[in-house]
């Protein structure tokens, strides 16, 4: 990622959300991006997640320059290469856990039978194999976030992007969620985590701090290991 800048125009004033960020994330890394609100970490996350395009600069994802691709191609990349975990879970309401997990595969054109099988597999992996037909309203926050993680990993992405994944959870379920992300990282999947909590960032192997749209520090550390998740909940 080379000299990424993102400028928002609000009336006459220009808001430099990212003022030149250069960053390389290797395959399989577990990176936490830290910063206070307004530091530009969410904007950076959106650009990494191909939801937004930089005003200037270049972004190579897996060797492909993605910053100038059209919306359809970006949608394909989000679908095939990336997996998202959000702070507010963002599961479809009144839709069963299994169907929520199937969703990215629907857009990837995976046949129905295979979709179902993979959804069950992913949900079993996050310990919700017995809650396939529960709707989000019938699940606790921690369970919902696990459904969201299942949805993020079911498409076999190379990168998981987690935006404040523990922000809406208590500390015990937060640990569970972090353990799952570490497990994915151990399988060689790149995990990019955005958080403002140092406790959460402690689970990452590399911490990048942003302030005012610029990187102020980039440190490698020995990650804190989260306890493995309980078998089922």
């Amino acid at each position, binding site marked *: 990622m080379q000299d990424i800048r993102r400028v928002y125009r609000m009336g006459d004033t220009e808001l430099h959300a990212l003022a030149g960020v250069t960053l390389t994330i290797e395959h399989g890394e577990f990176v936490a991006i830290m910063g206070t609100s307004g530091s530009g970490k969410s904007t950076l996350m959106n650009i990494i997640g191909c*939801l937004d395009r930089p005003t200037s600069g270049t972004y190579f994802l897996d060797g492909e320059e993605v910053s100038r691709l059209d919306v359809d191609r970006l*949608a394909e990349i989000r679908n095939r290469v990336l997996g998202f975990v959000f702070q507010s879970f963002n599961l479809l*309401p009144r839709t069963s856990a299994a169907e929520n997990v199937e*969703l*990215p595969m629907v857009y990837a054109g995976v046949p129905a039978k295979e979709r179902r099988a993979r959804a069950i597999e992913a949900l079993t992996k996050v310990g919700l194999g017995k809650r396939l037909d529960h709707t989000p309203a019938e699940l606790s926050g921690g369970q919902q976030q696990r459904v969201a993680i299942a949805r993020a990993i079911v498409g076999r992405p190379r990168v998981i992007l987690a935006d404040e994944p523990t922000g809406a959870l208590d500390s015990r379920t937060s640990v569970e969620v972090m353990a799952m992300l570490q497990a994915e990282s151990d399988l060689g999947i790149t995990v990019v985590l955005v958080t403002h909590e140092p406790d959460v960032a402690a689970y990452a192997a590399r911490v990048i701090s942003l302030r005012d749209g610029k990187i102020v520090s980039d440190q490698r550390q020995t990650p804190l290991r989260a306890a493995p998740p309980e078998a089922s909940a």
Partner: protein
Amino acid sequence: MTSLQTLRIALRALLRNKMRSFLTMLGIIIGVGAVIAMVAIGEGAKARVEASFAAMGTNLLIVLPGATTSSGASGGFGSGPTLTWDDVKALQTELSSVKHAAPSLRKNSQIVSEEQNWSTGITGTTPEYFSVRSWPTSSGASISQSDVDGGTKVVVLGQTVVAKLFGASSDPVGQTVRIANIPFQVIGVAGKKGQSPTGQDYDDVAFVPVTTFQSKIQGGLQKYMTGVIYVAAAGDVARAEKDVTALLRERHRLGDGQPDDFSVRNLAEVAGAQAEGTKTLTMLLASVAAVSLLVGGIGIMNIMLVSVTERTREIGVRMALGAKPRHILSQFLVEALALSVLGGLIGVALGAGSAGVLASEFGWPMLVRTDVAVIAMLFSGAVGVVFGLYPARKASRLDPIQALRFE
């Protein structure tokens, strides 16, 4: 992503909000139902008018004796006798465009059987009359030429008269009835004819030979005939009308400037005007119904816009997970289409049902036209696409980041 999946996603979204989906469909249901019912009613009314004109005779001309002028005041048509028996004969024999011509003289009189009596229109006529009116007898014989030549006292009764004098399902052939105190033998019963376009009962009638009518009922032979002449055209009714007019003007020695002293009525024209009237009515009803279909479409657009706003987050999630704008577009478009087509289907069923109820209520033939049903369905589908397109486009153009942050 296949279209079947898109349909499933759309149907699931609609099922999540059953009540709202139904209310949205209601506009289309009422619109399509109204179109189907209105057209069916219009067609039924038209068929009834056509049937009553067919009962009267479709190739029929009626010649009425003309206006006389006495002391400068014009009498109406039929006010004075201007048609002669020779005119009837000439119409029958001289014109190739005329198949039959028959006189019809009418007088109301009491007709008495052994037990009952009834007042009806006694019609004096010739055998041709039954051909002109295409009116066969249902039992017994019709009036023959020898009856006319001999002035025999025979009568052919209409169905209503039979019912009044002898009871509904009796066969009075061979019985004797008295008309103006003169005994007549019943030789036949005319077939059921029904009602005239104005609701007059054709079957309330008794036919006697025209000669007998003149001598016994009217009271004496006259040079002028006092009734009307029914003329059946051989082919083109308009040509027959022209020929009849020309012949009668010539026979009456009318100069170029003089007005006709008779009048020729073309029933096909009257029937055509009636049919035109019902057609206009049908068009009017159908267009009112079409407007309600349009209103239904606006209802769909309204709800789809609400739905897009309400599901902004869902749209954002779908986009983040790899939905392309066209996936979102087709999802919402298919939802609108499913609403309108389903509404259309229910509307067709409802419209056909209510048309059936109305038809049996008014005794009309039930005419639900399949072409109208198909057009109404296609139209409601088109309404769905047209009014669903704007909300669907709006949904597909959302920015995923904004959509995900939407509360």
